[in-house]
């Protein structure tokens, strides 16, 4: 099971959304921009966030749900700290993008659309990020990685793991010994 957000986290998120909603008008046209704001701030759209958006715009909850589930952009579960998008555009496909996706899936032991149980990583397949000349391409936390290869997949993941360990060690060091 994926760790869900704690109640405290959840409350912070909803408070933040409530305060930001005020910047939007109350017309139906604001729905998608509102959903985008929620996702941008919190990386996913929680059930309560859907309700808040519906209430704010005075439309049915199911309407908001219907719109949100139509678009690829919106997620309904928290993604991992490191979010990996594997491009499967035409150029990437011809140059083996599916092999890159498989390598990520194998290394992280999750499927596309899923998050690792420790919420460190998540994988998403995307249609085209428009960097076709660098195919195959992946986007790791907003950084576009061109000319991907299976060995590069390993390197990237290893890099993140080392960084995390380093950060943990630093943290331990800075904490006074008990």
């Amino acid at each position, binding site marked *: 099971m994926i760790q869900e957000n704690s109640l405290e986290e959840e409350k912070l998120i909803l408070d933040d959304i409530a305060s930001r909603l005020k910047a939007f008008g109350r017309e139906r046209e604001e729905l998608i921009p509102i959903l985008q704001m929620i996702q941008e701030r919190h990386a996913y759209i929680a059930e309560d966030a859907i309700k808040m958006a519906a209430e704010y715009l005075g439309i049915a909850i199911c309407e908001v749900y219907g719109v949100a589930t139509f678009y*690829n952009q919106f997620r309904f579960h928290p993604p991992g700290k490191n979010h990996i998008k594997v491009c499967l555009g*035409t150029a990437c496909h*011809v140059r083996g993008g599916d092999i890159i996706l*498989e390598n990520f899936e*194998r290394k992280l032991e999750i499927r596309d659309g899923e998050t690792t149980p420790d919420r460190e990583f998540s994988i998403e397949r995307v249609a*085209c990020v428009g*960097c*076709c000349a660098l195919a195959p391409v992946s986007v790791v936390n907003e950084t576009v990685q061109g000319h991907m290869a299976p060995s590069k997949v390993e390197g990237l993941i290893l890099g993140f793991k080392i960084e995390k360990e380093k950060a943990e060690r630093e943290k331990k060091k800075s904490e006074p010994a008990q």
Partner: protein
Amino acid sequence: MSPLNNETVQKAFGVIRDEAKRRRDAFREEPVPKIQIGMATCGIASGALETKNAFEEVLAERKIKAHIRTVGCIGHCYAEPVVIMDHPESGFPPIFYHNVTPGKAKMLAKSFLEDGDPLFEHVLGAMEENDLVPQVLDFPRFNQEKRVVLEKCGCVDPEDIYEYIADGGYETLAKTLQLAPNEIIEEVQESGLRGRGGAGFPTGRKWDLARNADGQHKTVICNADEGDPGAYMDRTLLESNPHQVLEGMAICAYAVGAQKAIVYVRAEYPLAVKIVTKAIGQARELGLLGEGVLGSSFDLEIDVFQGSGAFVCGEETALIQSIEGNRGMPRHRPPYPVQQGLGGQPTVINNVKTLASIPPIIEHGATWFRAIGTEESPGTAIFSVVGNVVHAGLVEIPMGVTLRTLIFDICGGVPNKKKFKAVQIGGPSGGCLPEEFLDTPIDFDSLIQAGAMMGSGGMVVMDEDTCMVDVSRYFLDFTQKESCGKCTFCRIGTHHLLNTLERITKGEGRDGDLDQLETLSEDIKNGSLCGLGKTAPNPVLTSLRYFRDEYEAHVKERRCPARMCRTLTAFYIDLDKCARGCDACVGSCPVEAIFTTKNRKKGVDQSLCVKCGECMVACPAEYDAVMKVSPPDLAPVVD
């Protein structure tokens, strides 16, 4: 527009233009070297940011005086990161460097800027005519292009409106405001410009319909929902020269009588969103947008709307639905958006490239535009030529150039001595054309006749190692996922096409599959509601027409001639070629499928192998011992 008004516009624009020129001259005349770095998404993905940092570091470290200037994309994606260094004191012309890594950047700064040695081994060419370095404009990748839309891309800083103005930008808008709207529409109609979004509807006619439609609140929408996987010219244009698009939108709005305009950009293009938003702000600040544009009585507000990831929203009526906050499902046309669009009001929806074509057309006139391209398709076409091609990138050519010229002369043909097999044009709505069609001229009608379509201009070159059945499967997988689900044919029909293609690529094809693919494709084409469904079967239909033998090999022999379908291929190590002592393949395998026997023979455990091909890359070229075969039982067993 009264003459008094004309005077106001001229005066207002004159002030802005003078300021722009003053700034440019000041920059140019400053006696320091200039380093220009391409920083669009492709450039950044190739490491342009690191390159820029490296330049900054080395300049600071060695106290070299030089200006770093960032520009958009010049379209030569294969050469990214690209840097142009202008060091007049050295006696060399401005020089174009390719693939400039941070290390190279530091080297260049030191040797060129300090010692005056331009390091010829890293030079692609010179930007001006001279006696020392060959000029890039003489290279086929440059000299066969005709840049109308992309002219200023990669030359101006997209985040500085004055650079565009100093280069002649917004001059046409100022001119437009002194003409009557119908004069503008006549000029556009006269130019013969056809919509660059794919279908090729005459732009002038669309504008005329919108101008004459009843409605107080008309809207102009720039369609930058570039969803075709394999096309990225709209992104590049918005990232590299947003003002040309905004200027085109303003001219359109003035001509049709709209006071509101929207740039609809995919949310997958964060940099484009950022740059366009900034550009709108700058234009508003200078009075080129907003209330009373350049002191005239014409008002225009432009907003950015981010599409949320639905290919179908490239379709006009679905796009409008999504702006209105609904599910992006197309509706039956007519009524067309020019009659009843956003909020039930007349709405002009034009592609980014169409709108960016407007300023040059109004500036140089319809006759000039008509002289480019062909009779029925005047002007230029922009393609993103990618896939198995040497000089991948964006190319703008006059319509009527043949596919052969584009792929082989301009883009350098297929790399690694592989044979050309097909070119896929028009993305999921287009088709794959084989070698026989290489002499087809590129224009709207010829491509449709051949079974492909201009589409959004994605062009994917495929070599002999690309399986055409798999490519069809790929596109159907895409359209099936992107179908909005509204109409029966598209929602369920594409699923069955995909299902059959999946079976075939796995070697589970059955007799009658090909006929059924064909009939169902025809029905989906004739029965679907919107353009997405109507064109979804095109990849299947064209590949069945031109590559039927490949389909048959899959179905009848369980063989993939291109050795691409993974269930139908196997890797093995040719022991006659293998140097036994080398373990490169073993080390490269991500799943430990390659083993070594007691007498140092190498074998592949087929049950573990995922067919990623890493071993093939890893095996030293002098041995070249890793083999790939189809059907898989051709691989010898090693124990």
